[in-house]
């Protein structure tokens, strides 16, 4: 019983995260805030200094992730509410906690995976 509950809980979190990634991580505002912005910030530190690209590159990767995650996180719920998909999402066998954890876990996962790979 507990096992089933836990499984359905984790499944919902995963599905919310998967849906978020499929739909929202490629939206123009996310791409704009998530890629050119950290790139220019990186260049501001890199250009005109004798900094080593090898030491600075992980910083760039981390910034990409930080900006993508923080630009998309607070936007998903308002977007969904406006599009009318949020209420239907609530009508699925999920709780509000699951929805929040799903959205958060996606951002954390993106962050941790990219940081470890760099």
């Amino acid at each position, binding site marked *: 019983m507990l096992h089933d509950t836990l499984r359905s809980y984790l499944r919902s979190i995963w*599905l919310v995260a998967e849906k978020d990634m*499929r739909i929202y991580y490629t939206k123009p505002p996310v791409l704009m805030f998530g890629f050119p912005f950290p790139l220019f910030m990186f260049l501001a530190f890199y250009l005109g200094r004798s900094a080593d690209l090898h030491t600075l590159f992980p910083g760039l990767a981390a910034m990409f992730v930080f900006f993508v995650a923080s630009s998309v996180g607070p936007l998903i719920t308002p977007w969904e509410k406006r599009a009318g998909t949020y209420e239907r999402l609530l009508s699925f*066998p999920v709780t509000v906690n699951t929805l929040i954890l799903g959205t958060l876990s996606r951002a954390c996962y993106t962050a941790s995976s990219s940081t470890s790979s760099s």
Partner: protein
Amino acid sequence: MKQKHHGVIAVNGLAKRFGAITAVDDISFAVPEGELFGFLGPNGAGKTTTIRMLTGILTPDAGEIRIGGIDIQKDPIAAKMQMGIIPEMSNVYTDLTAKQNVVLAGRFYGMRRKAVEERTDQLLEQFELSERKDDRVEEFSKGMKQRVLIASALVHIPQVLFLDEPTSGLDVHSQRLIRTIIREMNRAGTTVFLTTHNIEEANALCDRVGIINRGTLAAIDTPERLKRAFKETQSVEVAFYTPTDMGAIERSGLVNRTEKAGDKWRFYTDDPDALAKWVFALAERQKLSFTALSIEGASLEDVFVTVTEGKARAP
């Protein structure tokens, strides 16, 4: 102690307040297994608040809701697992394809990927969407989006189906298709709870209707019995080829109220059969030729208007 209601949907003493306004006030009813139940009411009567509480989107202030015997407040996930829901303010994901939308819904209900894909293909075929299943929903018409929405509510073969105004604003073809599918699901054993503004739709589809007004259930019965309860709205409609004095009919003693409707006269009566025979005899005697003679029973619309204007309560 109030009588407890049993059924697939069982509601006891349900209430919800928004600030000073009581949206739903102590509603109790039950919908037995396999029934197609229609929920009618004017705007702001508490229809959507009720369906939102039944589907676990809103938390009631008081009362108990059981879906298939499971208390929705104690175990929302198990209760929701049995339901297929189309909320009022709802939409499909326009960035996903029709198929992705339905598959996503199925997976939320814990279906295996292979099973959900088979079922999705079958549903989209049934909803006449299979040619466009891999197109993004963004380009779909309103009727097509609604069909995708309904397909995703049916994907896990729910025991109970909740629909909030499923056909409002759609073209006739989509309306018919959706009604056919609701009927088929119902025939296959699914209990259906449907809210609608369209009284004819409720009349044609539902086994039983409940009319909600100002947060309370004003009437709940089968459409035919509700109509019969409102005898005063039965009428006989008459028109003759030549202009005739209708005063004689009014003085027959059978007429409660007379109304002129275009070139026809409508006589409200308690006994339409006797009045029609009386009018017929009159025409025989005076050699009058009819252009119209019809008996109009009370329509569900009359019942609805009477109940929601607070003139009468159904027995």
